[in-house]
Structure formats: structure tokens, C-alpha cells
């Protein structure tokens, strides 16, 4: 595998097949944890960790998988790494763990991870799987951060809990609520489709 195609595998996850913006996968955490940057970033990094680990494991045992137990194996692997990530957060970032609540364990049912295990790791070597996981994870994290930046900025006038907006700005609390999440993501997706159509023609 040349480095060029590895690079392509990585960048694919960032835009062409960005899990959130293009494939519409993993919407629950995307909407739930993006009220502020900190939890969004934590979630993104957790997903990268789980994605990389599960891709490595799946890739290693790809030749041993039996068809009807395949999904069960994936689930088992993912659940294990998600638990580890959860424990880590509880131990070292207790505030974030509390803020994210059940959305960390919900990574288990995030379609991105099982989808990558299926579509990439179970067919490719370890190196490719890692790069793919990193690309996809980075794409996911970027999308989360994009959404979180907009929401945190408008909802509180802050970024990473530091005030950045001018003093006359009245925070739009609604942006921190579910409505803000849905509407902002909807508008971002519309924008993405405008950009895609433009670049196509």
C-alpha cells in the first residue's frame, strides 16, 4: 500500500465520506454532545480511540471470522473498548464523564464503528485499517467540533468556556437546546449538499 493511497484513505473520511456530514451516521452523539466544545472534543477523541482499537483487532482476526458470528464479534470488541474509554474518562476526566453521561457507552451502537469494521477492517490489513479509522474518526471529530463551535458560540457567547463574543451580544440559549442542535445540523447538511453540487458541476 503506497503512502499516497494511505493518504487518500485518510482524507476520504474527512470529506468525501465524512461519517456525519455525508453518510449521516452517528447522529445521536453528534446532536447530543455538541452544546459545547469540551464534551464534543472528548466524544470525538473517544470515538477515535474506540475506532482505532476495534479496527486493529478486527483487522487482525479478519481471516478467522465466521459469517454468522461476525457481527457478534464486532459488537464484543467494540463494547470492550468503549468500556475502557468510559473507565478512563471516569478516572481521569470525571467532569467530562458526568457531562457526557450515557453517550459514551452509546458509542457501542454508533454505526460508524461497526460500519468501518465491516467495510474496511474485515477486508484490509492493519495499517490501512488504522489509517482508515484515524481518517473516519478525525472526520467525525471535525464535524462535531464544527457543530459545537457554532452552538457554544451562539448559545453562551463562549468557546471552551472562555467568553469570546463582544459584551453587547445576547446569548441565544435556544442554540444549546435540542432545537439548536437539530436546526444547526440541518443547515450544515444543506450547506454541505450545496457545496457538493457546486463541486460536481
Amino acid at each position, binding site marked *: 500500500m503506497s503512502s499516497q493511497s494511505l493518504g487518500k484513505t485518510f482524507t476520504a473520511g474527512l470529506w468525501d465520506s465524512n461519517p456525519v456530514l455525508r453518510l449521516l451516521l452517528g447522529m445521536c452523539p453528534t446532536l447530543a454532545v455538541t452544546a459545547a466544545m469540551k464534551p464534543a472534543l472528548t466524544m470525538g477523541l473517544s470515538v477515535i480511540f474506540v475506532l482505532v482499537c476495534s479496527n486493529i483487532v478486527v483487522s487482525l482476526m479478519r481471516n478467522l471470522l465466521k459469517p454468522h458470528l461476525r457481527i457478534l464479534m464486532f459488537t464484543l470488541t467494540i463494547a470492550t473498548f468503549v468500556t475502557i474509554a468510559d473507565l478512563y474518562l471516569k478516572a481521569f476526566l470525571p467532569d467530562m464523564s458526568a457531562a457526557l453521561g450515557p453517550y459514551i457507552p452509546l458509542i457501542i451502537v454508533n454505526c460508524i464503528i461497526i460500519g468501518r469494521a465491516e467495510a474496511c477492517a474485515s477486508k484490509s490489513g492493519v495499517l490501512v485499517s488504522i489509517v482508515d479509522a484515524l481518517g473516519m474518526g478525525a472526520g467525525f471529530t471535525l464535524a462535531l467540533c464544527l457543530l459545537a463551535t457554532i452552538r457554544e458560540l451562539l*448559545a453562551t457567547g463562549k468557546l471552551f468556556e472562555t467568553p469570546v463574543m463582544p459584551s453587547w451580544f445576547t446569548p441565544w440559549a435556544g442554540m444549546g437546546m435540542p432545537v439548536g442542535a437539530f436546526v444547526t445540523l440541518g443547515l450544515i447538511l444543506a450547506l454541505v449538499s450545496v457545496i457538493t453540487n457546486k463541486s460536481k458541476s
Partner: protein
Amino acid sequence: MSNKIKFFFQESWLLMVSSVVFGLLLAITDAAWKPRIEQNTIDRFNRLAGGLLTEAERFESVAAEPLAIEIGGKEIPVDVKRGLDGSGQTAGWAFVCEGSGFADKIRLVVAVDAAFEKMAGFGVLFSNETPGFGDKINITPAAGGFYQPQFIGAPVGTLTLTKSGDAAVIDAEIVAISGATVSSQAVVTTLNAWMVPIKEKLKAEGLLK
């Protein structure tokens, strides 16, 4: 029969092996980080309670087993802690209580003075209230909130919530957060439900004079 078992193992040996491995992995990770996780919880309590009872240097549970206290007709175990100042005197009491808020449970750390007469305030351990409204109950006095300071020095007993009134006056009347009566009410209701039974229990146990 043996053929079937053989087939079964052929098909699923990987699953079995990896489940054992994953199980071990998890248990070891857990064992390694568990003390830290537990310490985090205690730290959080101490930080909140200590912020309220400034004189207290450390907190210790009043009994080895949590006290069984009847709240709303149900026996609930409560781990009431005594805050001790530098000289080992009781500086106040602190405990965790919970009630339902607007969207989810609210878990509060409550501190009262040594005589269990006046509140030393409360801190929010967990809440998931509406951002911009209900979550204003989270704003600490230091951060300029107007809701929490009303409880500092408020009498232990039945608090009432009003929509109008002067928040600066410390009494049993608590002024609600505008637009977030539910969250405001939830805190008051929870405190009302827990404080008096605990006080009585402590008295009954002879821990409080």
C-alpha cells in the same frame, strides 16, 4: 452429538477465546482505575461540601452504614457526613440528596450548620436542566448566580418558592428563576423532603443534640 459439538467449537472458538481475553482485559483495567474513580466521587463531594462549609477541613460519615431515613414514605439509605474543623469540632453536616428536575434527576450536595438550624447552602452534583433556564440553579454564588445564595443561611424547615419577592432577603421564601420555575421548585421540594427527616434521624440517633 459429538460431531455437533465439534462443529460448534470449530465455528465459535474465536469468539470464546476473545470473550475471555476481553473479559480479563476489562476486569484488569477496572481494577487498575477503580480507586481513582472512587476517589473522584469523594473528591467531588468534598469539594462541593467544603466550598459550602468553609471551616470544615475534612468530612467523615456519621456511621459505618448509611442511615436509613424515611423520605416520602420510603426508606432511603443516606450517607450523612459530619464536617470537622481543624480542632475536630463539628463544623456542620453534609449529605447528598436527589429529586426529579425538569428533564432528569437532580442530585444536590447539601450543607447545614453544626446545629442543623440553618443551611450553609447547596451545590449541584448532577443535573441535566435546560441550558439557559433551569441550569441556572447550577450557578454558584461565586459565579454570580442569584438563586444559590438565597439558601445560604436559610432556615432548615419548609421552604417556599415564590415568583415575586426580594432575593436578597434570606428567609424561607425562595425566589424562582424567571422562566424556570420547575427547576427552582425541584430544588426546594427536594430540600424540603430531605432536610427535616435527616435532622430528626440524627437527633434520634443521638448524633445531634
